[in-house]
């Protein structure tokens, strides 16, 4: 009797916190052999964290993981593998220079006397590919395979590890339609003997392949339903929640003339024909799913990447931007999405970081005017309530909120006319978030043009005057008045 009701995998009350973020708050999940469970949620809902815990990449702070009713601890990726869990990430873990056969059996070569038995290995590989019903040349380096083929190699590798649970993270993100249908055929075949967790933003696929769906939101388990019993609208509602839960101190400024005008901006397939404008005093929210091209668009405006085509105008004057230096000189500031890798030189002092874009002002004949710089920075330290013991503090030793304020201070000192905030509140605590919102209000009141990129739906709704939604590199739609917008409407535009 217990064999029939005990699930293959049961996660109960999984807790996980990162500095400044409560990523998972008691999440439950159940998976049976013979089913495909779709894991659904907004960006930052906690899907990736949950998967990483399953894969042994993160240790949970609390909760229980059981396989076949047996409690198990997954302390490392190796233990996860041994326990029969295989995770296929969006970024494959294949070594491009090694052949298919070598990749599949990496670390478990058949080499009793130090010599690899190719024959034996090829047989093993053939058997695996026979099981998923595809033929692949085992002696081709993986780097020469298409993305779809590489995915098959990953699946074969998972099978060779005797995995019982296979987790697929956005497996169709870069597949062609025929490859997708072949993948689905394989999944349907695999699920007879395995349990499969399938993560995707694409609702169409979920309805096609999944048996049940579990929805996460803000680190909470919201619902688990059989796929036949939910509608598309219901799922979206479950994902975004019913109301905005956080308070946003939005103050609407007087909206003036068009300041930043972007026309037909293109770059490969990342950004496709994007046109919009930002008016003085306006906060334009730019949202969409991860990978929709929001950050890429911002980088084009800022000169961090070169566009293939398109024009950028500021106050009616066409800008000729070749690099960030040009953009900064024109009065554009960018708060990058990843402050650690793009916003700060972590090994240098906060004052030096603050000074970097402002050295033209705080130097004479090539010499840094240290006192002038120190005084200027001191004003922002007080104004933004940056908590540092002294100005020579290294940037790496600060909390996320304080780091973000240092990056903000850089651009405030330059008095930029256009400010691009890319995920301005990611990974910072509630107090610092509030201060960032107040600052956005203040800048808007000064008539600056503000482009705010955010994946957090409530933030976009709460702080924007107008909202643009991007999908697959293009503008999917515009919501002229953010007050009239709903999360459902945005989500519909974002998922298409």
């Amino acid at each position, binding site marked *: 009797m217990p064999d029939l009701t005990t699930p293959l995998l049961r996660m109960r009350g999984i807790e996980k916190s990162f500095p400044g973020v409560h990523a998972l708050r008691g999440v439950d999940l159940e998976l049976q052999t013979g089913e495909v469970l779709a894991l659904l949620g907004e960006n930052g809902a906690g899907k990736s964290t949950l998967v990483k815990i399953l894969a042994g990449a993160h240790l949970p702070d609390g909760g229980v993981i059981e396989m076949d009713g047996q409690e198990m601890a997954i302390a490392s990726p190796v233990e996860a593998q041994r326990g029969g869990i295989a995770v296929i990430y969006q970024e494959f873990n294949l070594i491009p220079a090694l052949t298919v056969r070598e990749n599949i059996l990496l670390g478990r070569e058949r080499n009793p006397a130090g010599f690899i038995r190719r024959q034996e290995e090829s047989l093993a590989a053939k058997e695996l590919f026979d099981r998923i019903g595809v033929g692949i040349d085992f002696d081709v380096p993986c780097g020469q395979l298409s993305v779809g083929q590489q995915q098959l190699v990953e699946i074969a590798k998972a099978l060779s590890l005797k995995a019982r649970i296979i987790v697929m993270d956005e497996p169709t993100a870069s597949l062609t339609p025929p490859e997708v249908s072949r993948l689905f055929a394989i999944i349907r075949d695999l699920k007879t003997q395995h349990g499969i967790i399938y993560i995707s933003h694409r609702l169409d696929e979920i309805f096609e392949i999944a048996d049940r769906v579990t929805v996460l939101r803000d680190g909470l388990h919201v619902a688990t339903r059989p796929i036949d019993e939910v509608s598309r609208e219901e799922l979206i509602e479950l994902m975004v929640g019913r109301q905005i839960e956080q308070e946003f101190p939005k103050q609407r400024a007087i909206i003036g003339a068009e300041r930043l005008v972007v026309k037909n901006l293109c770059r490969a397939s990342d950004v496709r024909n994007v046109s919009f404008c930002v008016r003085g005093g306006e906060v334009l929210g730019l949202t969409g799913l991860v990978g929709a091209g929001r950050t890429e668009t911002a980088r084009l405006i800022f000169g961090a990447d070169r566009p293939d085509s398109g024009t950028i105008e500021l106050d009616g004057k066409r800008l000729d931007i070749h690099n960030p*230096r040009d953009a900064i000189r024109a009065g554009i500031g960018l708060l990058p999405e990843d402050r650690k890798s793009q916003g700060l*030189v972590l090994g*240098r002092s906060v004052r030096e970081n603050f000074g*970097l874009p402002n*050295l033209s002002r705080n130097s004479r004949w090539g010499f840094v005017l*240290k006192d002038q710089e120190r005084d200027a920075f001191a004003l922002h330290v007080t104004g933004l309530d940056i908590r540092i013991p002294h100005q020579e503090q290294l940037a790496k030793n600060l909390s996320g909120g304080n780091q973000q304020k240092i990056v903000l201070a850089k651009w405030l000192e330059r008095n930029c006319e256009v400010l691009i905030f890319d995920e301005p509140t990611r990974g910072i605590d509630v107090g610092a978030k509030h201060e960032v919102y107040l600052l956005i209000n203040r800048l808007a009141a000064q008539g600056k043009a503000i482009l705010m990129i955010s994946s957090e739906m409530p933030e976009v709704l709460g702080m924007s005057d107008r909202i643009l939604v991007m999908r697959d590199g293009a503008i999917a739609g515009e919501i002229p008045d953010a007050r009239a917008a709903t999360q459902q409407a945005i989500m519909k535009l974002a998922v298409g």
Partner: protein
Amino acid sequence: MIVSPTNLAMRRFVADYGMVFVLLLLCAYYSWVTYAEQNPTGSAGARQLAGVILRQFGKSSAVLIVARDSSEDVAFAETLREQLVEGGLNVVGVVKGQPLDARQALQNIVEQGRKLDVIACNQSTALWTVVEQFADNFPSLASAKIVKPRSYWWPNFLKTDNLLNVANQIAVIAIIAIGMTMVIITGGIDLSVGSLIALSAVIATCLIRDMGGGETASTASMILCSMAGVCACGLVGFFSGIMVTLFAIPSFIITLAMMLVASGLAFIGAKGQSIYQVPDAFVWLGRGTVWGIPNAVMLMVILYAAAHVLMTRMTIGRYIYAIGGNREAARLSGVPIKRILLLVYTVCGVLAGIGGIVMASQLKSGSPTYGGMYELYVIAAVVVGGTSLSGGEGKVLGTLIGALIIAVIQNGMNLTGVESYTQKVVLGLVILGAVLVDRMKHRGWEWLGLGRKRASRQP
């Protein structure tokens, strides 16, 4: 926690220049093992001896000075005579030569029937038989006394001459290491500097030979020819910079290529030969001194002072650190990355060129074999000085300390008679130790719990 400014400055000094203590420790060690009896020679010995003679013997005492004909002894004799005459003594003779000359001088005094009160010798002439046993040979002079400079105990290592020698020996490496420090702080590396030494030395000496007039070349033409050598190296550096910035070729690869190209060019230019046709004045930079300080050392000090100011006070220095620390963040902050990198590689080339001129001047010749393996010694100096090969961190003055540490170890081993093969082994281990310390600085402290304590103090 409130950190007092002095406490903070102290802590930062230890973090940045902790290698100073290693240098001092090494100096102390070699002072101890080379502590030995010193016999004052030359002018210094003469001054000491003059004082003794003036005190012990009355005015108008008759003195015979006995010295060999080496330049040091001549200086001894001349200075001593000057001082004694000034003090009112009667110098009856000065011997600058062989024992035979001393015998002749004594003979003359006896023959002329003059009196002799003092025979002033140095350590070596006092041991001549003719001097030691003069009373037997010249009984009429038996009342005369032999005096020589008193010996004293002092480490060989700490003798002024030796210390200046240490500095002079390392000047070439230290000068080039300035440029290398900058390149490494930006996250790159320059392997071509060793070959650039040869290129610059060959170009300069070839031009002096062929166009400047060889051994009769004028000062102006020597300067022009040397500048041509330096400029050529600057151009090579500029080219490496172009490849690194515009074509994103890893600096390791392009400078490796330039290392071969520059070395080959030097051999072609010199036709595989050494070039000796330079005027005597050419050694001014490498062997000359001003106020007792070797010119090469002076140049090194000036360049380090300038580089220190550049790296700590100027916008360029700030940019260099930012590029190495986080290139993307620097770019998004409007740092002109390409311009700075070009400048840094060019400066590194120019400094390697200057190093080549100094070496040519020290050796009074130019040869395409100069600077072999020097890029490695230069990198070693930078790394021992605490600059991280991953970029973004390091101090120019740290590099100077690193270079001095290498020089002191080499010199100390020479003084204590360690053979050159063993020296290589020791140097290699020292470099390894320095890199280990660098790693510990990054990770070890956190393992030991110090890093965590510091982090928790942050708001």
